[in-house]
């Protein structure tokens, strides 16, 4: 006999069929955004900000690209309103600032070198 039929017949004849098992439903579990460390936490920060600020996001990419786009589109307006936002967004911003620090250092160094180059060129 086809095992599907075998199982159906056994189930129909079993006492288990009338068993009632009540479990908490999955939807009753709260959905948390910020609760992990590392890349997972950063990703959750990103999702939280997007879901709560409505700022649109274009495309996907590596973590650096995500951070750069947020820096362009989100950080300035949010910093201005920082005091009115909850702790989660502040955490998210802290994460972004940490990642952006590296980029800012490099950016400042480039500006420094360009200024030095301009000064040297003016002496020629």
């Amino acid at each position, binding site marked *: 006999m086809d095992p*599907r039929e075998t199982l159906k017949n056994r189930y129909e004849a079993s006492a288990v069929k009338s*068993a009632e098992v009540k479990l*908490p439903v999955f939807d009753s579990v709260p959905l948390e955004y910020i609760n992990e460390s590392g890349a*997972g936490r950063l990703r*959750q920060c990103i999702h939280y900000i*997007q879901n709560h600020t409505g700022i649109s996001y274009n495309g996907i990419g590596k973590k650096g690209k995500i951070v750069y786009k947020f820096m362009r589109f989100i950080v300035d307006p949010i910093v201005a309103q920082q005091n009115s936002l909850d702790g989660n967004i502040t955490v998210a911003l802290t994460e972004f600032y940490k990642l952006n620090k590296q980029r800012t250092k490099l950016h400042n160094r480039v500006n420094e070198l360009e200024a030095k180059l301009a000064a040297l060129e003016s002496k020629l």
Partner: protein
Amino acid sequence: MRIIQVLTTLSFGDAVGNDTLAIMGLLRKNGYADTGIYAENLDPRMATIEGVHKVDELPQLAPDDVMIYHLSTGSNLNRKIKDFNCRKLVRYHNVTPANFFEKYSEVTARLCSKGRSEVKSLNQTFDAGICVSDYNRQELIEMGYTCDMSVCPILIPFDDYKKTPDSEVISKYSDGVKNIVFVGRIAPNKKQEDLIALTATYKKLYPDEKIRLILVGSARGTENYDKRLKDYVELLGLDNVVFSGQVSFASILAFYKVADVFVCMSEHEGFCVPLIEAMCFEKPIVAADYAAIAGTLGGSGILLEKKDMVKAAFYVHEILNDKELANSVVEGQNNRLKDFSYEAVSTLLMEQINRFVRGEAL
């Protein structure tokens, strides 16, 4: 006349990536030496394979050249496909509907929604289609595709499953406890919460039996869903659920080896390669009847028409405790597995590609 393949992302080790590489090998074996894969995004491990290129390197195509376009996600590339002046064959793998991700990630939901809109917008772009499942083919028809379409399963690298499994994993989980295994990304469409509910139901119905649920898959990008699943495990008071996280291929092989039953509650799959893998490892399958699942099982395995957890737990219990029944399920699966052999699929695929090249119906 060249036949080339184009796709958005060539990832390492996923179904689309494996299918694309296998098709390249097949084309070369069948006289199409001048073939290649052109991807918008390339996993570094794939970039070194001969014949794999970035899509920017796509040469000028002639009108009689054939492009096989793997459609599995939204992308900028989808919008450019219409502009290529060549014959176009779509290989549709499916795009997950956005509603599964709406609670968890606006970005992902938007990408999925965009992807599905793009699939629909391309409904007059292709000259023909070879879909990996009849479920996918029907979906394209519903989206207004009127071109000639056929079905040919994914080309699966069965030799990979003969590689050495991780002995530590085997040793750790061969402890007399029966293992219920599911392999798949931790993703809302795969409904791992239903597997957890099944485990809790089983524990209530059969409190003296020792079982373990092993969820094998990465939660990268779905960390909040992963967290919610773990919270659910805690809420249900379960101490027998294992989340493997991202693991090596050898570990995945080992998890299949230690499985006593493979259970799938996924609500969206375009094909579901793990079902084939479970068949390969001769593990009886119990799966909920959604999307392409029934088509891939093809009458084998055990199909749950509805997600009745008591019934599902009963079915799993019978399979775990009745060796003869389990063997009969596996026997049916072994027969079905023949339809997915490299020989069967590659013959079918080349027939369909050659008919397309000759201008005949697929």
